[in-house]
């Protein structure tokens, strides 16, 4: 009997210990502060009794924590107002979309992109390329120009198609759930950018030197100094939030989207002498809006009948027009030899110089990848701006090593449609070293020639053959930053 008691006593103790270990309080997910924000020494703001980190306080007030989110009306954020929807009872809660988005984000995205959207989740460090850090407000693959934020539609495209050639998979099957995720990603991005800009704001008020040492206005600083800081800080908060709100509002405006400069070929069209192939012909000669889908009908060899589906406009386009604009042979739908030749010329030209990054053989191993590149002012490592990365090769704005695309593989991260490639050539890739050529190549047909060249490369490498550019020209000293103009 005694012996049995000993057994069970021991067992009970062991079980108890194990249970206590297992049932400790579960941690809450938390937004991580950027490294730079953490360096700020707390100050007393306004009439506060205790010193706080001003950026942290502002973030907490305006965005909350993952478990209690705060949606700011000022931002163009559809956080999901409460609805009466019997089919979806969860929509009755205020902010349901953001909450739903957060839940989905915590299930599908957090491992790579991190709770704060800093691209530093537990899985991130092993992925190549690294997951996006949303906090700079920069997105690579989008249809909007330059540094403009991505539209909701762009984010949806990325989620639906994934990013081929990277670890970002396609989430196309989430369907209705995509919208909340997009909204939450926008929320995280705004939050991160807000943080980043506030830091820059403090830097502006206090000067860079103080911050470089990780300093701020000490709590015991003279009253005037603190008052001055508080005034400046108030302005900064206001300025940053309105700027941000505007930036994100612009993103969804239709005019932010890049379309081919000559989006239609109708303006070139000539009305035939006998304008009666099919009843009355109404042709204005004006440029049709880009979103209007047009169908072509093959007609008598050299002419194309163009019919707008929307309002039955009918016009005739010269056979050569399509070819002249986009380098496509309308008979075969394939790029013309002339276009490919011109594309090659541009690829190896000193003005466009694609080969410098994408390589002499299009394999993404150009001379630029052999150089050491400088840290930019905008990068998270801006305190080292002017110094060089010790890893050879290009770096993106997130300080990650960057490999120019291998054009032979036929994998296009931003999408493989001609319009996607056009946009890349037109405006460059935001955050990466790919510059836009909208200013250097004023003629759209040049851009299309490049697109044709690039889309043909995976299937026919013979178009690379020919003399190589003059070796005496060194690679450019600094990258052409597409954001510089914005």
């Amino acid at each position, binding site marked *: 009997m005694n012996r049995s008691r000993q057994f069970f006593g021991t067992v009970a103790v062991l079980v108890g210990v194990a249970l206590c270990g297992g049932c400790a309080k579960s941690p809450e997910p938390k937004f991580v502060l950027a490294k730079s924000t953490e360096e700020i020494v707390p100050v007393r703001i306004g009439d506060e009794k205790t010193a706080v980190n001003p950026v942290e306080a502002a973030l907490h007030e305006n965005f909350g924590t993952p478990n209690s989110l705060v949606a700011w009306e000022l931002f163009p954020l559809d956080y999901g107002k409460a609805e009466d929807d019997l089919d979806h009872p969860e929509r009755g809660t205020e902010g349901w979309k953001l909450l739903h988005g957060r839940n989905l984000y915590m299930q*599908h995205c957090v*491992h790579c992109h991190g709770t704060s959207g800093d691209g530093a989740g537990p*899985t991130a460090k092993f992925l190549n390329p690294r997951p996006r850090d949303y906090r700079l407000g920069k997105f690579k693959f989008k249809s909007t120009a330059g540094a403009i934020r991505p539209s909701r539609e762009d984010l949806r495209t990325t989620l639906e*198609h*994934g990013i*081929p050639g990277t*670890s970002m*998979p*396609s989430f*196309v*099957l989430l369907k209705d759930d995509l919208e909340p995720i997009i909204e939450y990603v926008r929320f995280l991005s705004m939050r991160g950018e807000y943080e980043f800009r506030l830091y820059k704001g403090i830097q502006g008020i206090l000067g860079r030197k103080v911050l470089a040492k990780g300093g701020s206005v000490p709590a015991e600083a003279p009253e005037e100094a603190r008052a001055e800081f508080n005034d400046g800080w108030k302005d900064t908060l206001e300025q940053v939030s309105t700027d941000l709100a505007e930036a994100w509002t612009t993103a969804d405006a239709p005019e932010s989207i890049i*379309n*081919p400069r*000559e*989006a*239609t*070929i*109708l303006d070139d069209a000539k009305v035939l002498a006998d304008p009666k192939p099919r009843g009355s012909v109404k042709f204005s000669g004006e440029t*049709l809006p*880009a979103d*209007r*889908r*047009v*169908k*072509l*009908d*093959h007609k008598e060899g050299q002419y*194309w009948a*163009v019919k*707008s*589906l929307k309002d039955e406009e009918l016009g005739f*386009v010269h056979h050569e027009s*399509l070819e002249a*604009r*986009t380098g*496509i042979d*309308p*008979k*075969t*739908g*394939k790029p013309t030899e002339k276009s490919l030749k011109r594309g090659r010329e541009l690829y190896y030209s000193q003005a466009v110089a694609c080969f410098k990054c994408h390589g002499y053989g299009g394999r993404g191993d150009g001379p630029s990848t052999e150089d050491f590149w400088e840290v930019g002012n905008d990068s998270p490592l801006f305190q080292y701006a002017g110094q060089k990365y010790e890893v050879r090769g290009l770096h993106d704005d997130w300080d990650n090593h960057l490999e120019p695309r291998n054009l032979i593989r*036929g994998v296009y991260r931003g999408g*493989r*449609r*001609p*319009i996607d490639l*056009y946009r890349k050539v037109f405006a460059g890739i935001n955050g990466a070293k790919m510059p836009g050529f909208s200013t250097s190549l004023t003629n759209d047909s040049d851009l*299309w020639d490049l*697109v044709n060249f690039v*889309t*043909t490369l*995976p*299937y026919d490498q013979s178009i690379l053959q020919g003399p190589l550019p003059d070796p005496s020209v060194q690679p450019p000293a600094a990258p052409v930053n597409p954001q510089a103009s914005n």
Partner: protein
Amino acid sequence: MSPWLIILSLGSAAVLLAGALTKKFWPAFFGLSAVATVGISVLAPSYRWWLPGGAQSPMGTEIDDLFYMILIITTVTYIAVHVVLITALIKFSGKPGVKASFSHGSHALEVVWTIVPAAILLFISLYQIDVWMRFRNFATFNRHSRENPVAEVTARQFEWRIRYPAPGKKLMQKPQPDDLYTVNDLHVPFGEPVVIQLRSEDVLHSFFLPHLRIKQDAVPGAIIPVQFQANFEGEQELVCAELCGWGHYKMRGQLTAQRKSEFDKYLRDLQARQSDDGVSGGRAAAVVTQATPKAENHP
């Protein structure tokens, strides 16, 4: 909790109690476990803890039939073995002073219980060889679908990349400029055997269509044709069934089976979308016109 479960648990308690009172606790215990096992298996389908609906492909139906055949054989064996076991436990529970019967075995019994299972097992294996050969032997595939694979499915970490030939063309092993690409959503015409070419770009994956009972590993370095026939119209799951890395569970795809005409239209739409160059009357239109010389006037 369903009433069945309540009845089950109360019954179990009663049996165990009765066993304990009659000093037959252990026979009752093991007997109960056997009864419970069978019982829960009978109940399982009503909780949908069972095959995900009837098989939606002819091959799947045959596999289901085999499954049920084996299930019957094994259930009978299971019950028989346990009846003997429990009987032995009840009948021969130890009694003090009683000596067990002295026997080293029986040659006749050994022969019987070697030959009977052997015959059954041999029957099972020979019975199903043709199903297996139809699944894996390419020569038995429908000739038309074998020569005209509907798509190439390339598995990669962690998604299914799908490549269709342009409408009216054949799928080539080497990618063609006019191939059509999608991701995670495989469309096929329904009601006819189709063949896909299965590839892998990085590690092992497995192309698993649970509702069609189709599964085939995607082996890097190999192209494996897989034939199946979707007997439904609509969408079903496509799952990766071979560990392929950290995001294995993320590799969710979908099989959409459509009427032939809808499938063709799907491909044409895909083609138009993919050749979109933002220029009205540009490449998209040209390509569509190329594929269908007589343009349709309705969208």
